[in-house]
C-alpha cells in the first residue's frame, strides 16, 4: 500500500530579478515512501530549484511565492516545512532530508580527513554522542558504502572520484534520513563507476527504506534507476508516471521529443545523421 512521504501542492518559486523569472510554477506532486522519483528536464527547466525549494534551501533572489510542502514523518507526525522556524528547520535538515550535491566530488574539505568530516554530522545533530560512539558510527558508514573503515584517516585527494562520491552518500545516509535528494550524483563519473554507484543507491534504498529524488538530465540513466519520473519544462511538470510508462507510452509531446534526442546504445541507427 503506497504511503506518502512528501506532499507538494501548488508550489511556486520566482527569481525576483528584473524581469522576474517564474522558475517553478504551481507544481503538485506526491512522493511515496521508499520510492525513487526521477526529475528530468533540460538546463534551466526548474528541476534543481524545485528540489532545493522544497527543503527551503534557496536564497535570494529566489522567493517561494506559494504552495505548501508537507513531510509525513515516520513517527506519524505531519510537518509543514514552510511553517518551521529557523532552529526547527536546522534540525529537520539532514535528519529527515539529506542531499548528495552536484559535483559532490569537490564538496569535501580537502584539508580534513573524511573520518572527521563524517563525524561532524554527528557532532552537530547528535550532540549527546560520545567520541567513541561517533567513531563507531563513522566506521560503520564507511563499511556500508564499501569504502572500508581503514580509509577513515584518508584525505579526499587520496580517494578516487567514485570513492569520494561514496563518502558523500555515507554522509547523506548518516542520520538515516527518510528522503535523500540527489542532484546529478554520477554525472562526473565514468560508466563503470556510475553503474556501481547506482546499484549501491538502489540496494541501500531497499535496506534502509528511504525515498530518493534523483535529478538529472540523463534520461537513459533515469529510466533505469527510477520508479516514477517527472518530466519538467519551463517550471512545470508536463508528465509524471512510471519509468516504464514514460518509456513505452509517453503522453506528452515534449517527453517524446526528449526520448528521441538521445542516441540509443542498442536501438536503430540513424539518430546521428552521417
Amino acid at each position: 500500500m503506497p504511503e506518502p512521504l512528501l506532499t507538494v501542492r501548488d508550489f511556486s518559486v520566482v527569481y525576483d530579478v528584473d524581469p522576474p523569472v517564474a522558475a517553478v510554477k504551481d507544481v503538485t506532486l506526491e512522493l511515496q515512501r521508499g520510492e525513487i522519483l526521477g526529475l528530468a528536464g533540460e538546463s534551466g527547466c526548474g528541476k534543481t530549484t524545485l528540489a532545493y525549494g522544497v527543503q527551503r534551501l534557496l536564497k535570494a533572489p529566489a522567493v517561494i511565492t506559494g504552495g505548501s510542502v508537507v513531510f509525513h514523518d515516520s513517527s506519524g507526525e505531519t510537518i509543514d516545512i514552510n511553517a518551521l522556524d529557523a532552529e526547527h528547520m536546522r534540525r529537520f535538515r539532514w535528519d529527515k532530508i539529506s542531499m548528495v550535491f552536484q559535483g559532490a566530488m569537490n564538496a569535501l574539505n580537502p584539508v580534513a580527513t573524511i573520518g572527521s568530516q563524517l563525524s561532524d554530522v554527528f557532532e552537530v545533530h547528535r550532540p549527546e554522542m560520545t567520541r567513541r560512539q561517533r567513531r563507531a558510527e563513522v566506521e560503520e558508514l564507511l563499511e556500508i558504502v564499501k569504502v572500508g573503515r581503514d580509509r577513515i584517516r584518508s584525505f579526499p585527494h587520496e580517494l578516487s572520484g567514485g570513492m569520494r562520491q561514496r563518502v558523500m552518500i555515507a554522509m547523506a545516509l548518516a542520520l538515516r534520513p527518510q528522503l535523500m535528494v540527489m542532484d546529478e550524483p554520477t554525472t562526473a563519473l565514468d560508466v563503470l563507476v556510475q553503474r556501481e554507484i547506482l546499484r549501491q543507491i538502489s540496494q541501500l534504498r531497499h535496506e534502509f527504506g528511504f525515498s530518493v529524488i534523483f535529478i538529472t538530465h540523463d534520461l537513459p540513466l533515469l529510466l533505469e534507476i527510477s520508479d516514477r519520473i517527472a518530466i519538467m519544462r519551463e517550471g512545470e511538470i508536463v508528465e509524471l508516471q512510471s519509468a516504464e510508462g514514460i518509456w513505452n507510452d509517453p503522453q506528452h509531446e515534449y517527453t517524446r521529443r526528449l526520448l528521441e534526442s538521445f542516441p540509443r546504445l542498442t536501438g536503430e541507427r540513424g539518430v546521428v545523421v552521417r
Partner: protein
Amino acid sequence: MSILEFDHVSKIYNVRGAGRMKALDDVSFTLESGRTIGLVGQSGSGKSTIAKILTQLETPTSGEIRLDGAPIPRRGRGLRSYRQQLRMVFQDPFASLNPYHSIRYHIERPLRLDDVVPKQQTEREVRRLLERVQLVPDTVIDRRPHELSGGQRQRVAIARALASRPHLLVADEPVSMLDVSIRLGVLNLLADLQREEGLGVLYITHDLATARHFSDEVIVLNQGRIVERGPADDVILNPQNAYTRELRAASPDPENWFLSKERSDASKDASTTGGTR
C-alpha cells in the same frame, strides 16, 4: 589517405613508490581522412594520454606518431604547421573559452596567428565560421562566453578549432557536459563538418551510445592496451572482449532494461521491502 598513424606507441610513467606505470602499451592504429575513430574506455584507460601525446603535452616513451605521413616535428615551423593541422575540442565549454574576450576574438586569433586569410578578410571569415557551426553571427559575435548557453559555447569552440583548416580534429568528450537534449545537435554538426571538409576525427569518450552512432571504427582501451577494435556496430552490439562487454553492460540501455533480469530482481526487492519504515 591516412592522416594519423600511431605506430607501436607506449608511454610509461615512473610513479614514486609504485614503480613503472604503463599508461599506453604498444598502441597502433590508423585514422583515414573523412573517418571517425571512437576511442572508448573508462577513466585511466589511456584515452587522454593519447590526446596529450597528440597535443605534445607528453612525449611517447617509444613508438612513432605520424601526421600526413611525417613524424611530429619537435620545434620550429614544422611544429607550428603540425598544430595547425591538428585541433582540439575540449570537454568543458565553460573552461575552454576565455571569459574576458568576445567570441570574435576567440575565432580571429587562430586566423591571425596562422595567416589563414588576408587580414582584411578576417571579419568575413569569422562570420563564415560562425555560420558554419549554425550560429547567427550578428547575435553572438560581440558577446562574451558567459552570455551564451553551453551548446552555443561548444559550437564556438568548434568554429575556433576549424579556423586554421585542420585535417584532424581531436574531440575529447565534446558533448558530455552538454544537456542530453542538445548533444545530438552538436554531434550532428560535427558529423556534417567532417563529411563536408573531409576531416579525420578522433572521438574520445566513455559513452558507448554516442561512440556507436558517431564513429566508423571503435577502439576499446583498457589499462593502456587496445583490447578490441572494429566497425562501431560490431564492437558495441556484439562485443567479443570481456572488458568491452563489461562496459556495455554498465551503460544505460533502456531498450533492454525493461526486459532485463536486473530490473525484475530490483522490483522484486521493492515489493518485499518497499513501504516498510
